[in-house]
């Protein structure tokens, strides 16, 4: 069969939505593969990226295996592809699309132009995902570029929506992409000092079902320790559903950070202990890019001491507070810290400057604020409740699940009980 005939066949099959046949043709036809390998650029020109996306991507795959050529041209090619690819066809070859964007990400990071990749990747993600809460294999590449470009607000448009399902991409969606998404997400939120959200992201990364510990999870754990100290004042234990292998071995690998967590909660001289660790292991923290977080942990010790006092006292003088916390600057410095903490909502207190006294109070909720917050929380609960119902329904109809729970060992769908369930 001539090359032109083969190309025509691919084009026709793409237009007729015969996607499996396109893949079979490429697998079987050595002629097609050889001709494309000889001149991938010419092969790319044979296929329209919007109508014959599968042919285009398969030709692109051969091109990427050989040489990318001019990076500028490659960037233009990918920007155009992101705008026009046929979504259904692209979903059949998502692994090639993800690899193509991975190559683009690497090129742009190397050339120190990561900001140029944000638009094509964001466009591709928005077109490919089934809904904003679906994760695709392109998400981690986008976050990597956002971090590299220091454009963290661009990342928030993706990160602020909770991920509740994976875009169906067959066996090509690997765990690395999933772990990287949550690691980068936690990193970005920590950089923006949104520590609660960062902690959640690192926790998801660490609680991913695992048979072995990934290097990504090791780095995530180090940051998890530091962010946990900032949010909760102690190292929060990982949830019960964390994989056994993580729970058992990760602390041994990250000994320095556990040492820091222990020093943080000491009653006596935690500040000096952490400073000692910083002096001894400053280079290790720098290498892990955690030096800034460690310094923030150190600075937060004063605030932790003040927060502990709110649990014991209802009123306290500024002088007393400064002495108990150990502030060299005296009442002035205490007032300065209090103002910062009141502004951030970390404590609720009122200072009477005439008497030099502080009154610690419970959180004062204002009526309309309570209603708005309650409304929002309830809406979220209702949404997740509905979603869990749908997921439960879909799972109970899944043949694999039914087979397992029934324990019949049946491999066909002739079992009447299965038929009954599937007919629902």
């Amino acid at each position, binding site marked *: 069969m001539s090359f032109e005939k083969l190309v025509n066949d691919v084009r026709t099959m793409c237009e007729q939505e015969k996607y499996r046949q396109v893949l079979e043709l490429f697998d079987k036809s050595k002629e097609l593969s050889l001709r494309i390998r000889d001149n991938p650029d010419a092969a790319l020109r044979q296929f329209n990226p919007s109508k014959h996306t599968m042919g285009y991507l398969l030709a692109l795959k051969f091109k990427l295996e050989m040489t990318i050529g001019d990076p500028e041209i490659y960037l233009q090619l990918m*920007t155009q592809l992101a705008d026009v690819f046929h979504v259904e066809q692209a979903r059949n070859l998502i692994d090639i699309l993800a690899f193509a964007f991975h190559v683009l990400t690497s090129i742009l990071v190397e050339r120190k*132009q*990561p*900001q*140029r*990749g*944000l*638009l094509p990747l*964001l466009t591709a993600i928005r077109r490919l995902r089934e809904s904003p809460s679906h994760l695709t294999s392109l998400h981690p590449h986008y976050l990597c570029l956002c971090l590299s*470009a*220091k*454009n*963290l*607000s*661009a990342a928030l448009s993706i990160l602020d929506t909770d991920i509740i399902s994976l875009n169906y991409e067959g066996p090509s969606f690997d765990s690395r992409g999933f772990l990287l998404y949550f690691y980068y997400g936690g990193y970005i939120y920590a*950089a*923006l*000092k949104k520590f609660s959200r960062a902690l959640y992201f690192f926790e998801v990364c660490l609680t991913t079902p695992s048979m072995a510990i990934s290097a990504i999870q090791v780095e995530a754990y180090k940051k998890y320790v530091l962010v946990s100290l900032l949010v909760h004042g102690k190292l929060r234990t990982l949830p019960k559903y964390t994989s056994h292998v993580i729970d058992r071995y990760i602390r041994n690998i990250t000994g320095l950070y556990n040492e820091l967590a222990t020093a943080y909660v000491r009653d006596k001289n935690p500040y000096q202990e952490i400073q000692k660790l910083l002096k001894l292991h400053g280079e290790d923290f720098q290498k892990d890019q955690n030096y800034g977080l460690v310094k923030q942990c150190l600075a937060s010790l004063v605030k932790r001491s003040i927060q502990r006092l709110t649990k014991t006292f209802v009123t306290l003088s500024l002088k007393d507070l400064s002495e108990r916390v150990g502030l060299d600057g005296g009442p002035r410095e205490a007032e300065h810290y*209090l*103002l*910062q903490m*009141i*502004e951030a909502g970390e404590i609720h*207190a*009122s*200072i*009477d*400057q*005439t*008497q030099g006294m502080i*009154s610690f109070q419970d959180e*004062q909720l*204002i*009526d*309309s*604020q309570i*209603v*708005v917050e309650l*409304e929002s929380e*309830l809406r979220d*609960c*209702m949404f997740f*409740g509905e979603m869990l119902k749908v997921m439960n329904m879909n799972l109970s109809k899944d043949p694999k699940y039914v087979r397992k729970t029934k324990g019949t060992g049946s491999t066909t769908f002739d079992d009447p009980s299965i038929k009954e369930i599937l007919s629902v």
Partner: protein
Amino acid sequence: LEENIRKRQFKQVLQQCEEGEILNPSGYATTEVYMVMLGCYLATDELEHAKFLWSRIPESFKKDNPVLGNLWNVTKTLKERNILKFRETMTETCWPDNYATLTDVITECVTERITLLISKAYSAIHVDHMATLLGLKPENAKAISHKLGWSMDEGTGVVSPVLKRMEEVEVVKGKNIIEHLANYVSFLEN
């Protein structure tokens, strides 16, 4: 954009500017867009975003447009929480006319934030200390406290701030209230 800044619709303005930055093929925005973004981050006290914005603005932009550097100097004073220096920098810098609204709004927002903090944090504060926190002269601080309806003892110069009540927000209106409540009750019961 200027109209939205005047109306304090910062979220909208930032969304527009951030999209503009990504949509540009070079990945960079214009000086005006960077100024507006930086200004909005200062008005909304998002200093972390301001810091990352400054670090990604190309050096050539900073060199060719000293107004960006001036606004960054203002950012530094807010990061140091030095309100006196903030006001000095704002008044002593010669801002181009097209940024007059932006700089006015930044100053107003910072003043409002500090007065809100004072009303939350203090049950009694000396007017001189209030003036220091606001970066103003005591007479101006007195005027602000009068405007906000805070009582002041002229003899001792002690001001008693009052926490401003948030405006009542009507979450659901009219006939929908019953449907809304019924949905909630049904969900909670089941």
